[in-house]
């Protein structure tokens, strides 16, 4: 039986997203040479949220945000069933600063695949990683996020579930564990 524990509720999630936006602005100023790429399938919701909030704060309408599917670059092909999603990057990433966005950083394998997948669209100047939840004890690869919403200590058998108002009815992050 999975027992849920709430890590972030709707209010805290909003505060966290706002803080991440200001951290981004601190480094990337007006986003004139920076683009946002959300990883499919679950990172795109956070990317869209951050994109919307940045446009509000900066009063700009032209910040670039795309989605990237990593399915064809994964290393667990044939070990489990993979379902590809849409990739939509309608801008050039050559020479740009890229902020890669995902909801949970766990083993780091999705990010590894994401870095490979991104290179098919050009050579970025600089790539940074932003995640909402960092499960810091579960890494399989030497990958770290520069911007983190919340760091949690969890074991591999536990699951982190990030839900969004747009698709799941409410904003919240829960930790599910076998008791």
């Amino acid at each position, binding site marked *: 039986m999975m027992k849920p524990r709430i890590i972030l509720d709707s209010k805290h999630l909003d505060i966290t997203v706002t803080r991440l936006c200001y951290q981004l602005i601190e480094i990337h100023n007006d986003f004139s040479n920076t683009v946002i790429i959300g990883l499919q399938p679950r990172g795109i919701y956070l990317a869209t949220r951050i994109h919307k909030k940045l446009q509000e704060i900066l009063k700009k309408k032209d910040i670039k945000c795309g989605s990237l599917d990593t399915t*064809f670059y994964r290393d667990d092909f*044939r070990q489990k069933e993979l379902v590809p*999603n849409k990739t939509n990057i309608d801008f050039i990433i050559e020479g740009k600063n890229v902020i890669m966005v995902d909801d949970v950083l766990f083993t780091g394998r999705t990010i590894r695949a994401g870095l490979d997948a991104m290179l098919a*669209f050009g050579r970025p100047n600089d790539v940074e990683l932003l995640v909402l939840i960092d499960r810091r004890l579960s890494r399989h690869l030497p990958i770290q996020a520069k911007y983190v919403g919340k760091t949690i200590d969890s074991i591999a058998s536990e699951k982190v579930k990030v839900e969004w108002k747009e698709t799941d009815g409410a904003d919240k992050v829960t930790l599910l564990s076998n008791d």
Partner: protein
Amino acid sequence: MTTLSTKHLLGIKDLTADDIHLILKTAENFKEVINRPIKKVPSLRDITIANLFFENSTRTKLSFELAEKRLSADVVNFSSASSSVKKGETLIDTVNNILAMKVDMVVMRHPNPGAAVFLSKHIDAKIINAGDGAHEHPTQALLDAFSIKEKIGSVKGKKIAIVGDILHSRVALSNIFCLQKLGADVMVCGPTTLMPKYIHSLGVKVEHNLRKALEWCDVANMLRIQLERQDIKFFPSLREYTMLFGLNKELLDSLSKKIVVMHPGPINRGVEITSDVADSAQSIILDQVENGVAVRMAVLFLLAGRA
């Protein structure tokens, strides 16, 4: 549904409607991939594929090879014209020798119907049928369905006419199975001598008047007259065939609605279709070729992904 119900792709007859939808949906992702600046993904980097062509082919062979290379698979090619088949080696011996070199998948075209099914029962590799005689050509039917969907939104409920040499065409049979499974209404049109005897039993409409067929349909798939498979004369002359069953601009423009024109290639310009029709805005012949690579990538990816 995230995996195919079959281990091989031997014919459309073995696929479920869900399988076809899964292939077409996956092909959409690959169509995006092949339009990127870098068109290659590493999914099949640990897979070796043998392309065995016991019959001539340009499009299908190139299309499969491109699809395999864009998925990063290792590819070996074989064509019977330059091989030991000429020295009397059997099909199973040839293929087993190739498999001894550790090949994971086999793409095969063969002049004999059932060759792919036969092979799948005797060897341990995933088989993709790239055309077996006048039986089936599954990837062609899949790419045709993908192209129709892309052009007019869906296949379900649409009226599709297949015109020409139905008797000798593997494309016709695979298309009939595929389009019917996707919910389309299918008509075949051609001279009585080029119509299989029990074609009615497949649940298709049969028409012998080209104009009537074109007035009825949303999409016309014009097939080539397969002279190489015709050991006797099925009609008096090519000129007469063209007059009765050839699609020209005049006929196309005189129809009450704008229909979509398809052709699986190779085209015999001026026989089943005139140049101005083949190159017109209503023709999606080159889209079919582009989509062929995406659809074949989807088939390879989904079959290779099955444990």
